[in-house]
Structure formats: C-alpha cells, structure tokens
C-alpha cells in the first residue's frame, strides 16, 4: 500500500560510489533503483496476500457491497434498515462521520476563538482560567476524554422513567437528550427556499454596497441588513404559511421516549470530547494569530479614523487570519480524523460501520482500504480547498 519509505535514503549516498561522477546519471540510477525496490516490495506483499487469500479460499473484491448488510445501525440520518445493502450501511457511516465532524468543527471554532480571546483578556482570572483549560485539555489523550465523558453520561444520568426534566419538552436521560422539535409541515420547505433566496439577495447586496462605496465613499451597514434578510425571509415565509406552531414533543412510551429529536450519549460524548480537546489547540492558534498583529497596526488604523469595528474587520482580522488559517485547518482535519475514535464508545461512524462490515464479511483488506480512502478523500479535498483559500488570501496581500 505505501511506498517503501526507506528507499529515499538512497538520495543520501550517491557519492559513496566513487566511479560514477555524473550527478545526472547518478540521479537516474538511484531513482530507477528506488522505483524497482518499491515495486519489488509491493509485488512481494501483493503476491503474498494473493497467495494467502487463495490458499484459504477467502473471497475478495467489493462484491459484498451489494449484499444485504442485515445489521442494524443505532442512529442514521437517512432511512436505513437491516435489509439494506452494505454499501448503504457504509454510506450511513460516512454521513454520521460528517455530521459529527461538521458540528464539531463549528463548535470548536466558536469555543476555541472564545478561549483564545479569553487567554488574552486583561482580566487576570479569566486569562488564567483559559490558560489552565488549554493546558489540561491539550495534555490528556482525546480517547481518555471520550471514555470519561461517555462514562459520566451513562453512569450519572437517570433512566428514561426518572428523566431529568429541566424545561417543557426537554428530557435528559442516560439514553440521551430528548427534546421537542417543530412538527414537520410543508411550510418548512418554503422556509428553506426563502432562506436560499435571502442568501442570493445578500450576495448581490454586498456587491452593490462595495461598488457604491468605491464610487461614492459612503458605506452601507451590510452585516446588519444581511442578518435581517437572512432571518427575516424564512420568518416571513413561516408567517405566510399560517405560522404553524405544532411541536413534536417526546413522550415516554414503553422503554424509551418516542418523538422529538434525540442526541444519543455516544454522539454527545464524542462531540463533547472532540470539541473540548480540539478547542484547546484552536485557542492557542487564535491567541498566536491575534498577537502576531503588531499594536502599531491598530494604532495606525485608529489614526486614520476608522471605527473599532472596522479596525477589527479591515485591519486586524485579515492579517491575523493569514496566520491562523493554516494551523487551524490542520487542527480541524485532526478533529475529523479523531472522530474515528467513535468506535471506542459505540457511535456508528464510518470506521465503526466498516469494522462491523469487516467482521461480517471477513474481508479485512477491502474494509481497511475503504476506511483509508474515505479519510484521504476528506483530507485531500480539504487541502485543495485550503490551497485555493491561501492563494486567495495571498492575492489580497499584494
């Protein structure tokens, strides 16, 4: 699977061969040798595998993907039953991974930024607390944190029949957090459409505002107006649809709550662990980013007569972000990769579903390859996006 890493060491020793002094030819010689060695080792491993599989008549290939999975998955964003195929089960796993990664990233950025700023606060207490937080959460393995939160959730929370009931429609039990959600109604679709229209509107508004500022020098409160549009459009659609306010409230029936939405303890523990862990790193990055912008910059901006909000928006942030974004991306990618630890606490993410698949079909090679390919895809697509973004930021610089 992997290229043989040691071969690159050949590049160290060209000169150990005294009789061949043309560096170009030498380079070709070493590269060819390296490639041959990698190919030989690759072939050797491949043929071993082939022989092993054949001798033990283990089935190979991805044919199993179309077979019935016949195992159930605890939580799924799309409808799935044991009668569906392995391919669909794995897809459910990918969606679950993406779900935890996406929500995790959003929360991590918010929490990390908050703590990073708190670390720089002139309030001694706040800054020290932030420092303690950063040290403690950075220095404890994330897996241990996951186990810790998971154990806390199921050991201390009560069973559904004795659920903690902090407010109407919300129940906290060892089966998770159950809460009421609006009853599904056709108007929701129109609200979504209204929101999309709002987004388009904001996009054009921004362009118009910039053009006007370029031409006349007058600024337009884009942020406030955009927020109004983005919130207002769906609200209008909702009112136009007769403002349906029926809620789908969870009710205890039989063993568990029925209805409403449910955040399982596994998902909760995974999210909490990942967010708390990664936010500690993000906080350090944010702190370093803000500190990297010298004080002279904000003074200069002030002397130009910019308002504090504009100083932050136009002077500090663009410079700080350039320092923040690259390490931030790698941390957020780490979060995505760490979400694979879900398997340890029973959240059905992709690795966990793939693991079950390996187990049921016995096709370990295909399963592990799938895991690697999916995560590589996540990582590479993020890298591509980041490279594009970095280029864009670099252009702004000049």
């Amino acid at each position, binding site marked *: 699977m992997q290229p*043989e890493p*040691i*071969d690159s*060491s*050949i590049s160290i*020793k060209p000169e*150990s061969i005294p009789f061949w002094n043309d560096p170009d030819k030498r380079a070709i010689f070493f590269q060819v*040798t*390296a490639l041959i*060695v990698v190919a*030989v*080792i690759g072939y*050797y491993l491949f043929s*071993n595998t082939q022989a*092993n*599989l054949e*001798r*033990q*008549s*283990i*089935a190979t290939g991805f044919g199993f993907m179309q077979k019935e999975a*016949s*195992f*159930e*998955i*605890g*939580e799924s964003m799309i409808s799935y*039953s*044991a*009668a569906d195929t392995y391919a669909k089960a794995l897809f459910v796993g990918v969606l679950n991974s993406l779900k935890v990664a996406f929500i995790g990233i959003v929360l991590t950025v918010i929490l990390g930024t908050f703590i990073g700023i708190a670390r720089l606060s002139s309030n001694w207490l706040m800054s020290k607390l932030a420092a303690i937080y950063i040290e403690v959460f950075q220095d404890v393995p994330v897996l241990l944190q996951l186990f810790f939160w998971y154990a806390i959730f*199921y*050991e201390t929370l009560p*069973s559904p029949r004795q659920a903690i009931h902090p407010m109407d429609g919300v129940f906290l039990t*060892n*089966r998770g957090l159950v809460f009421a959600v609006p009853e599904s109604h056709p108007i929701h679709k129109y609200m979504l459409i209204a929101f999309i229209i709002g987004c388009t509107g904001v996009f054009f508004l921004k362009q118009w505002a910039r053009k006007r500022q370029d031409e006349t020098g007058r600024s337009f409160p884009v942020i406030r107006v955009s927020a109004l549009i983005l919130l207002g459009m769906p609200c209008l659609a909702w009112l136009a649809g007769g403002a349906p306010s029926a809620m789908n409230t969870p009710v205890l*029936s*039989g*063993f*568990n709550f*029925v209805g409403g939405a449910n955040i399982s*303890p*596994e998902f909760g523990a995974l999210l909490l662990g990942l967010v708390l862990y990664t936010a500690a790193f993000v906080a350090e990055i944010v702190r370093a980013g803000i500190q990297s912008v010298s004080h002279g910059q904000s003074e200069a901006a002030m002397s130009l007569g910019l308002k504090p909000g504009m100083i932050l928006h136009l002077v500090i942030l663009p410079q700080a972000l350039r320092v923040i974004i690259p390490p931030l991306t790698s941390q957020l990618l780490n979060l995505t990769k760490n979400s694979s630890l879900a*398997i*340890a*606490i*029973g959240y*059905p993410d992709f690795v*966990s579903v793939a*693991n*079950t698949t*390996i*187990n*049921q*079909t*016995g096709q*370990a090679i295909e399963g592990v390859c799938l895991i690697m390919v999916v995560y590589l895809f996540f990582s590479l697509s993020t890298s591509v996006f980041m490279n594009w973004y970095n280029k864009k930021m670099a252009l702004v610089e000049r």
Partner: protein
Amino acid sequence: MKSLKVLVAAAMVLMFAASLCMAGTLEDVKAKGFVTVGVNGNLFGFGMPDEKGVWKGLDVDTGRAIATAVFGDASKVKFIPLTAVQRFTALQSKEIDVLCRNATQTLNRDTALGLDFVQVNYYDGQGFLIPKKLGVNNAKELNGASVCVLPGTTTELNAADYFRANNLTWKPVVIENTAELQKAFFAGRCDCMTSDISQLAGTRAVAPNPADYIILSEVISKEPLAPAVRHGDNQWKDVVHYAVLAMINAEELGIDSKNVDEMLKDKNPKVQRFLGVSPGNGKALGLDENFAYNIIKQVGNYGEVFERNVGLNTSLALKRGLNALWTNGGLMYSPPFK
C-alpha cells in the same frame, strides 16, 4: 546502506518463508514445541485469566486438550486473547494454530472465510438478559428497546433478524469491548442485552447484584460454538477434531480423570482401543498411542470440563441441556474410536 539492509532482510524473509511453506500445521506445532490457541480474553467460563493470570474456561481447556494430544503435556500451550474482529485473520495468517473462541459455525465462515470448524464443544443459543424491574416476560414485549449487543458477531445479525421478523423497532447500542458493553448495560444504558445464553449467564454472574437480572426463556438462534482451524489442512483438523471428541467419548465410556488409570486395565475392547492399550488410533492421527489417556488424565472428560468451568457449581450455573450426552437427551455424540 539502509536500502541494502532492507534488500538483504527481504531476501532472508523470502528464504525463511520458502522453508516454512511446505510443512503442515501439525509438524509446525511439533517443531515449535507448543500449540498457539486463540481465545476470548474477557469471557468468564470460556476464556479469561483469573486473578493470578492463569487461563480458565471451557475453550481454554479445549485448547489444553489439543496440546495434550500433540505433546502429552497440557502446559505446552500458549493462549492469545483476540477481539471478535481479529479472530479470523489471526487464524488465516497462522498467528494461531487453532481458534477456540466461542465462534459460531456458519456456512459463510466455513466457506468464504477459509475456515474449517470441527466438533462443537458447546451448543448455545441466543437469548435476552433484562433487569427484573422492567417487568418484561417475553422478548416480543421489547418493542422500542435499546439493546446492548457486541458488534460484528452472529449475535448482531440474529438480533436484527429477530426484530425484523417480529416487526419490532429497536435501537442497537454496539460497543466492541465485552467488559465495556457489560458496564454500559449495568449502568442502564440499554434495556436489555442480547448474546449467547452462556455469555448472558456470565454477564449476570458478574453483575453488581445478579438477582436483579433474568434471562428470558426465548432462544432466538442456534449457536454451535466450535473450535476452528484453517481450511485445507486435514491432518491438523483431524487432530483437533478427535481431541475434542476424545473428551466426549471418555464421558460416554465412563472414564474420567480419577478412574482413568484403573480403566487402563479394563477388559472392554472399546476402552482399550480408546486409551491406546490396543494400538492403532494414535498412529492414524499421527499422535502418540496414548493421546486420549493423556487428555483424560490431564484435562478431564467433557463432563468434568463442563462442570468445572460453567456447570451448576460455578457462578454461571448452566445446566447441561443440549450439551448433555446423547444418552441423556443432549447432542454430544462421539463416533466410535476405532
């Protein structure tokens, strides 16, 4: 320099591999001096080390019987604890010689996984363990329940089939580690736990208060648990197969570890053949003539092994049931040793 070393190492590995490829498992085992047995590390009564680190259990004793058959010495065995995912690859890759890890014999495993199952050493079935306070008497009342289940086992599939067939909704809670799963169950994370009944008995035995839990009477599947060997090595398969059968046959003949020495003098030709007094069986298997004698002497007959590990006097308190001899209404039946 490094690449040179790698090349040399690769070449050595190749030669080493070539020299090993030829031998069958029995010769390999004899050459290295011990049998490597894959077991479950967490399953009380089947495979688990005690406080002193000594391996105990029905599967473990089966492994000892195999070692005794080959070497005449029950201690020439090495146990490797395996997770459910690792168990079949460990066997396929020759990391272990035989798998005694409460694995269910299924068609798919017998064929697509490249395994061969031998004589069943425990007939099991899947059931449900529930806290008494739930007040459930029948598995059909489990609609909407959260169910703790080990992932990647036949158990998981059976449970899915059962709930599907009965049109019940359920929520699986899957945790890979048996001990963690039990902990989650006792803490009330799930309403019930499903697994082989022997395992449920083991789980109940380690509960903070065993009397709070009951095993429902329904049995939703057949689980013949058998040792497995690699496909295609018939000689080794025979050795393992007859090592297990020897324990069953001994019980049929009324031979146990205490009376085996007296039984050597028994006039019954069946007993004489079995214990190797009249030779033939050992040679046919490629073992010592007295292999069965050694197994019974050092490990015991099936009944002894059963009672010692999972029987009524242990905390599992399992009845013989299906695992009684066929003469007592069970399924344990040995072909004649002749």
